[in-house]
């Protein structure tokens, strides 16, 4: 997995916390930088797609392994 500019551990958190923490974490980045989020909320899969679509931050990567969901977002320029 590629290196990201920032990591966010959202494991154990339930809706809407993963999205709210992600939004906050993106605020610390500049356009083009990437954020990796790890979550365990199964609802996050659809929510991250929807978040990316509505905010213009690109969902570069999305994967699942051992009940953990990983998302990489690139902040909108």
């Amino acid at each position, binding site marked *: 997995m590629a290196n990201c500019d920032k990591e966010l551990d959202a494991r154990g958190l339930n809706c809407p916390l993963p999205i709210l923490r992600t*939004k906050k974490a993106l605020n610390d980045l500049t356009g083009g930088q990437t954020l990796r989020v790890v979550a365990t909320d199964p609802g996050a899969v659809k929510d991250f797609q929807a978040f990316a679509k509505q905010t213009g931050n690109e969902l570069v990567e999305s994967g699942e392994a051992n009940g953990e969901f990983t998302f990489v977002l690139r902040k909108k320029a």
Partner: protein
Amino acid sequence: MSTKKLAIIATKGTLDWGYPPFILASTAAALGYEVQIFFTFYGLQLLRKSLNHLKVTSIGNPGMPMPMPMPVLLQALPGMQSMMTVMMKQKMKSKGVASLEDLRSLCAEADVKMIGCQMTVDLFGFSPSDFIPEIEMGGAATFFEFAGESDICLFM
């Protein structure tokens, strides 16, 4: 693209019904919406400084999942409501659901505008010091000023 707007009317003052307005408002704010919540009648309870007094009840709420089947009259016994509230809070914590206080602070941080209904504040004899300082007071016309321009308007 102009900013989308979400207007919510929050009318319920229970632990469970406190969640929908704060969850949707904080999420909408994270998505870039401008958000206002108008708290009226029992919804004012959600603006009190401490939210420890909020309870859940199974009375009149047959949809509430119970750990075991229980006749309604038994559910009405003294102490049952407090016990259910404690159990609900424990369950929420174990499932990683945020507390109402946390969600409310996240709303305030994200500039969600929270308005207390002046008429119901007077009706119930609340004083401004009963509420968190982030709120404003207003009436129905104040609500419509924002709601009339909103893209989504929800009554809860």
